[in-house]
């Protein structure tokens, strides 16, 4: 794929110089040596030609991280992670990409096909040369193993003053914006994985929507983890200035790898007065095989701050992948009348574990939040909804409604609900409902009797169960998500 000329130049400039902190870099693979120490942090920073303040910030985070303990409270279990046994930087190989889709791994294409990714996008995702800028309807910022390689539709967005680029590029071109907002929602002391991310993040997306601008297209990033044994630490920062609107899609696919890979991303959203950010995620990383071997550890910190009056942040997630998911996209409702939303579908099958939910912190007056969480657990999977709704004394007239439903398929799986509800304002109204049930025999029989195979019937019923959430997804994603639901539950019945 053709990368931006400046990116190419930059990567070349960095990689051709001998690394000055004690080891040389294999230019072909361009992978940092295994291990995590201050030198690695400096190495990443140097690779990115970062300004002094950012390196200092990374180092501060790294020093805090060394004093932190890995959190134990989530209902997930996994062998201890050896943080020294991973590469913390892996730029994509610079050898030429495949000339056409014919040269791409057919397995990868099959997955894309099942997901219904348009051909043009497939080309871009698979790294076919010259495919950029042809005609996708979505602006795609593809992230391959930590480095944002291609950004499409950039020119069109630039006309409107919208900045949509890799965060490493933003550090160079818009340092003031990055410096002002980076870490302002998720501080570098926040939690174990977020702090680790602050120290070693390699790339991610940066979005700035200027005052009064409605972003004319869905902004989209596809993340892929290619290189075995690389931790992926993206950092995404989205700022919606006064009266602006943006819808951002994040999709993830990862090819099959045997060893567990750690993914600890941080996403920060900032919405000013009257601004709206809609953030949608479809996550279908490798969940490990049917025996629970391999798969991604997805330990992500996502948080949005509704700083301004009447601002709105809406999270929609479809989580079907990863061996372990640990993720709580949250909203801090600071501005009066601000709105937070969380729509989630989480599907766990085989040996997958997911501990996911949200936090809604009501600070401003008349703040409103809605939580709709649908959890489906099959096979030997364990799933937990963990959420916090907190109403502070000043949040006059705050309102929350939470609905958590769990569906169990098979008698070896588990579904758990752990909501925390704290109210310190009497005029606040909070409602929380949770139910747990299984797919009824009647529903299955009805479908089977009409000639629908058991697997399709389950997919149909589960899609109905999730409808409330799936309808929140942008059109392009909704179709993909519905198919994913079916794929994720393959082999869960019969």
């Amino acid at each position, binding site marked *: 794929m053709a990368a931006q000329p400046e990116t190419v130049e930059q990567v070349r400039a960095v990689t051709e110089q001998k690394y000055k902190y004690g080891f040389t870099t294999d230019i072909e693979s361009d992978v940092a040596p295994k291990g995590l120490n201050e030198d690695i942090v400096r190495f990443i920073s140097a690779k990115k030609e970062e300004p002094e303040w950012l390196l200092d910030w990374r180092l501060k985070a790294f020093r805090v991280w060394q004093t932190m303990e890995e959190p134990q409270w989530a209902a997930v279990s996994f062998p201890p992670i050896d943080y020294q046994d991973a590469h913390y930087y892996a730029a994509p190989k610079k050898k030429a990409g495949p000339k056409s889709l014919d040269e791409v791994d057919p397995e990868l294409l099959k997955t894309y096909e099942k997901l219904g990714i348009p051909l043009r996008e497939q080309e871009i995702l698979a790294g076919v040369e010259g495919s950029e800028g042809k005609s996708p309807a979505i602006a795609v910022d593809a992230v391959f193993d930590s480095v944002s390689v291609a950004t499409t539709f950039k020119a069109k967005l630039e006309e409107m003053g919208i900045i949509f680029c890799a965060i490493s590029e933003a550090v160079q071109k818009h340092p003031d914006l990055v410096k002002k907002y980076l870490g302002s929602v998720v501080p570098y002391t926040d939690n174990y994985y977020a702090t680790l991310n602050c120290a070693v993040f390699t790339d991610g997306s940066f979005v700035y929507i200027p005052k009064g601008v409605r972003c004319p297209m869905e902004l989209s990033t596809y993340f892929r983890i290619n290189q075995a044994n690389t931790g992926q630490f993206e950092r995404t920062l989205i700022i919606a200035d006064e009266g602006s609107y943006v819808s951002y899609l994040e999709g993830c696919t990862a090819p099959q790898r045997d060893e567990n890979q750690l993914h600890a991303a941080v996403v920060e959203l900032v919405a000013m007065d009257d601004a709206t950010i809609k953030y949608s995620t479809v996550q279908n990383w490798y969940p490990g095989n049917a025996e629970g071997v391999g798969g991604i550890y997805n330990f992500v910190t996502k948080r949005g701050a509704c700083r301004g009056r009447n601002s709105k942040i809406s999270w929609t997630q479809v989580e079907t992948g990863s061996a372990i998911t640990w993720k709580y996209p949250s909203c801090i409702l600071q501005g009066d009348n601000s709105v937070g939303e969380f729509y989630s579908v989480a599907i766990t099958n085989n040996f997958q574990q997911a501990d996911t939910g949200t936090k809604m912190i009501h600070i401003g007056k008349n703040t409103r939040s809605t939580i709709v969480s649908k959890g489906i657990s099959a096979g030997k999977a364990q799933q937990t909804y963990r959420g*916090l709704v907190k109403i502070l004394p000043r949040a006059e007239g705050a309102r929350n409604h939470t609905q958590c439903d*769990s569906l169990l*398929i098979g*008698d070896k799986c588990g579904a758990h609900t752990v909501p*925390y509800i704290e*109210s310190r304002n009497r005029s*606040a*109204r909070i*409602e929380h409902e949770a139910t747990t049930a299984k797919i009824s025999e009647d529903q299955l029989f009805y479908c089977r009797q009409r000639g629908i195979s058991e697997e399709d019937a389950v997919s149909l019923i589960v899609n109905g169960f999730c409808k409330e959430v799936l309808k929140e997804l942008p059109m392009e994603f909704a179709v993909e998500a519905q198919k994913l639901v079916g794929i994720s539950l393959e082999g869960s019945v019969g």
Partner: protein
Amino acid sequence: MTAQHPSPLHPMTYSTRGADPATAPAFLTPLDHMGSGLPGSGLSWLNELRAAGRERFAAVGLPTIKNESWRYTNLRDLAKLTFQPAAPAAAAIDLLPTVRAEGQDGPRMVFVDGRFRADLSSVDGLPPRVDLLSLDAALSTHAGLLADHLGRLAAADDRPLVALNSAYLADGAVLHVPANVQVERPIELVFVSVGSESQATTCHPRMLLIAEAGSKAVVVEHHVGRGTGTTLSNHVTEVFVGEGATLHHYKSQREGAGAIHLSHIAATVATGGCYDNFILTTGAKLSRNEVVSRLDGTEARTHVSGGYLVRGTQHADTTTLIVHAKPNGTSREVYKGVIDDTARAVFQGKITVCPDAQKTDGYQLNRALLLSDGAEIDSKPELEIHADDVKCSHGCTAGELDDDALFYLRARGIDRDTAQGLLIGAFLSESLEEIAEESIRDAFQGIVAGWLEEQK
């Protein structure tokens, strides 16, 4: 959400995280001075139980808010006080609370500062073979029964206060209803905290309620306070409900403003049995009611309901755990709370469905009404489901009185206070209706009415 807690799937071994061992000596030193003065010191199993409790509490002390189960209830202020074991009080007690109509009598045991007072009690009128006696007495006459049951349910491992209770184990109530015996008249247990004006006092009453197969009994506990001193009562109750047996267990906690009321109830229900629990909390400056009900047989039922009415600077914590261990169980939980002034209420309710417990039906509701700007409610309704063919739900709400309903009443010429009282009364009646025994429901309704009267 950052505190550590034992993961539901992978219980952690107990650590001193969320515990404060430094607080232990203040509670244990007086015990050492009592030496062999405790009843039943000739029983080796009892000595072991006491020693294990002592050892456990010495290692961990009081729980702190880093302990997930205690994240909303801080015992920090307790650690600042020095409690002396309450001296056996000879004080005359008049006007004992009762659910009985005037002139009626029935089985009643009275405890003053944790010690049985035979002079105030009467255990007459019970069917033959039913045992109702003090723990102190039972240790000499029913040692075998106690050896089989005491400490079997209330695990001290991750509950420091249960451990402390075991260490001090001395007196309390023992009820044994043999198979197929129906005790129709409610058995009343009255606990009076008197304490001392000059120092903070503590007592650790222990109760054992055994309803054998096919039997039925109704137990009503009243907890009241006399005097103004600081008292800490740390109750532990173990309940055994046999096959097809039914035990109704009601409790009203109206201790005084200086009281700290901590209570742990652990129940097990055998096949087809029913354990019905209701707790009405209006008293004490700090209270915590833990109820653990395990359905260990198939087709077992449990009701765990209650109400909490707090104001001033009161703090009331309700922590319940219902464990469905076997198939076809039913559980129902309805809690309602009213919180005024700067009072704070905590509701933590968990339903666990074990892998075998198919066809479980679990329902839980907690609704809280906040009456003032300083009031606070912290709820944590939790579901842990490991079986697929189950129906479990919980609901939880928090808010103020409905303006429309208030307006409706005001528009009909009802003054604000009366209208508010009516609405609060109606709100609470939803949980009071969970009480199956009419006489007790009426008596508890009277307590609620009294609370609302004081409100004006």
